[in-house]
């Protein structure tokens, strides 16, 4: 079960020490009750099934992801007869499948375009992690916000930014979502509430916390009917950064509607998570600050979706933040310029067998939610979408020279906006009085 030769660690004594040889990041893991299920500092129950699970959870030697327990519970509870209760309907399943295929096909096309010289600079691909993006973002409304890192193409696509806009942005054309001024690492979309796209790791976390703060402010001070939730996506390396802890503290302190989603793909460029982190179990950092911390198998979109539903629901109801650690893996290197020499091929092979797309396909076909041909049809459709995006990007014009100096300021002449909402410099009266020089 333990897959990688990347090194074994000694568990800290608080965890069952009987399993000292096992790497913490295998596909099955137990959550000690204090972390999430029986989270005692919250009066409300987070998962209705917590009582039944915790008795087995406390001492068992095998480890299971939280949501898989939930899944089983749900199946037991709701299965009246022999018909298995499924986690998703056919429409939901097809939507998830399409989104993941879009993410995968798009990123593969990015790699091709990069090696042909149409894309340049830093490009960080998301292959292998699609379950996290699809599992979380497909549960959001349009007004909810997503804040991401430099590995943001698929987050933007899942949130609704069109493939054409993202592809032209990567080509540096003026029809891109940021008119070519942002690039791969800075995907912003006001319409879809995709708040970026940040190159510095950890930078997006306070910004996401601020967006969550705004939701709460709108509700409490401006008295608007606002239950918008923010998702902050970031990686395992970020969890050692000061800003992460600062925001865990403030989010719990002020009970902000935010979900901190850790995409733990075990590697920060060439630095293994185990080499850089004193306690590699990131979900434990949540309870240290007073919020629930959950670990979930990030290669399985259905499990991610179940956990996401709970976490987002919590935030929407005003119960505060959640820290979700998704164990996932990136099939490609850190960026397209990364030779990716430090990762063990055996580890890569192991995770390749857990490809989230193959897993969902298997689930859907085995449970007769969709036929092979329907899924193939989706794949074909997505191929066309991506090719169309490339064509659109190719045909789009590069930015005009005058665009260089545009958009530095929202109010370029620097005189401020007057009470009537117009630029002050255009008001003929404004230079009278003491403003006279």
């Amino acid at each position: 079960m333990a897959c990688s030769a990347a090194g074994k660690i000694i568990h800290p004594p608080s965890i069952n020490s009987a399993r000292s040889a096992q790497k913490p990041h295998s596909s099955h893991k137990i959550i000690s009750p204090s972390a999430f299920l029986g989270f005692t500092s919250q009066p409300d129950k987070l998962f209705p099934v917590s009582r039944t699970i915790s008795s087995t959870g406390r001492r068992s030697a095998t480890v299971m992801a939280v949501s898989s327990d939930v899944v089983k519970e749900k199946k037991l509870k709701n299965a009246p007869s022999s018909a298995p209760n499924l986690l998703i309907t056919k429409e939901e399943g097809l939507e998830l499948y399409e989104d993941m295929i879009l993410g995968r096909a798009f990123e593969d096309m990015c790699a091709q375009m990069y090696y042909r010289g149409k894309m340049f600079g830093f490009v960080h691909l998301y292959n292998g992690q699609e379950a996290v993006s699809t599992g979380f973002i497909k549960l959001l409304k349009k007004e909810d916000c997503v804040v991401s890192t430099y590995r943001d193409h698929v987050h933007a696509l899942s949130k609704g930014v069109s493939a054409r806009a993202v592809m032209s942005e990567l080509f540096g054309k003026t029809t891109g979502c940021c008119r070519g001024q942002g690039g791969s690492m800075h995907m912003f979309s006001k319409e879809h509430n995709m708040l970026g796209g940040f190159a510095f790791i950890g930078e997006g976390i306070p910004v996401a916390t601020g967006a969550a703060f705004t939701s709460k402010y709108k509700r409490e001070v401006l008295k608007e009917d606002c239950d918008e939730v923010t998702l902050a996506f970031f990686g395992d390396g970020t969890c050692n950064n000061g800003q992460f802890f600062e925001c865990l503290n403030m989010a719990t302190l002020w009970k902000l509607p935010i979900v901190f989603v850790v995409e733990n793909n075990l590697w920060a460029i060439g630095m293994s998570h185990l080499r850089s982190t004193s306690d590699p179990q990131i979900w434990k950092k949540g309870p240290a600050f007073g919020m629930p911390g959950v670990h979930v198998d990030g290669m399985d979109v259905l499990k991610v979706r179940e956990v996401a539903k709970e976490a987002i629901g919590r935030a929407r109801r005003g119960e505060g933040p959640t820290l979700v650690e998704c164990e996932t893996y990136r099939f490609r290197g850190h960026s397209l310029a990364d030779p990716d020499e430090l990762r063990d091929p055996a580890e890569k092979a192991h995770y390749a067998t857990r490809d989230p797309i193959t897993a969902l396909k298997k689930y859907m076909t085995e449970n007769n939610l969709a036929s092979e041909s329907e899924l193939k049809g989706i794949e074909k459709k997505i191929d066309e979408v991506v090719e169309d995006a490339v064509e659109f990007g190719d045909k789009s014009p590069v930015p005009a020279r005058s665009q260089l100096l545009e958009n530095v300021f929202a109010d370029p002449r620097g005189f401020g906006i007057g009470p009537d909402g117009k630029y002050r410099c255009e008001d003929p009266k404004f230079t009278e009085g003491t403003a006279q020089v």
Partner: protein
Amino acid sequence: MLGILRQRVACKGNPAPLSLEQGIRVIASKAFSSSAKEMTVREALNSALDEEMSADPKVFIMGEEVGEYQGAYKISKGLLDKYGPERVIDTPITEAGFAGIGVGAAYYGLRPVIEFMTFNFSMQAIDHIINSAAKSNYMSAGQMSVPIVFRGPNGAAAGVGAQHSQCYAAWYGSCPGLKVLAPYSAEDARGLLKAAIRDPDPVVFLENELLYGSSFPVSAEVLDSSFCLPIGKAKIEREGKDVTITCFSRMVDYSLQAAEILAKEGIKAEVINLRSIRPLDRSTINASVRKTNRLVTVEEGYPQHGVGAEICASVLEDSFEYLDAPVERICGADVPMPYAANLERMAVPQVDDIVRAVKRACYRSSSLAATA
């Protein structure tokens, strides 16, 4: 003070600037008319925050000690009681965290005023000021404007040592996407802070701790709640014809005192209060240099790559033929601020440094050694 009074009176009704003698007569004659109200810079900032918060419910203040402590320097006094803890927010000691939270709130539609206890602490949050606030409107091609104000005391105080005394005007002034303001008087403080809060772009508002208690006369227009000063325009505090002195924040006071001393010796100095470090009011500065033909820049910050260096470059580029003498730069000493009182006095420009520099620029002194 006299210079300021005179300028204010001159501006009120007469478009043409008065000479010093005329001005004094005007003051004397107006001594019995409506007395100008006096306001400290602290009161000016407090009233500006109060008015902007009551006008727009999206404005909120966040920072260390802004609420229950009434503000580390009492700038936000009374605001917690008036607006409540949801709008005047005491934070833990997490500059990077709360500056970032402010930026995120600004992205999403609110208008935060983030206070740094001093701008030295903004270095912990500088990633958010520059990377997520200043650059966002550009990176997102206009989609994410960031109507945020970062304010706090800047520059040297009295005896606070090296890590609490740096002037950040030059650092922030070099970043595209930021507007950087440095008020001097109560009128500047009120007008510029209101303009900054209403502005849709990130503004770095550099106050000065030693000016907080200084009192200035303010006209009725300044007290009006819709009073705003334009961002990007400097103010000529004192008219002159022999030399131009540019300065901002506390150095305006010193420059005006120096101008008084020089006037007695027959040198009429024109003192320009920059008010806005970015965008720099190059046209006013150049117009003045073209009139006087000599320039002395005064600032508190370090000399290398400072505000004075930028002004010199600007003047050389635009008004080279008009210069009759090399430009003189007066800056803080090129050392971290010492603690001992006499050393600290030497590390910050004083009035006689400015007087000496002006005399050098006017060839009235033989020594050309460039001492700070």
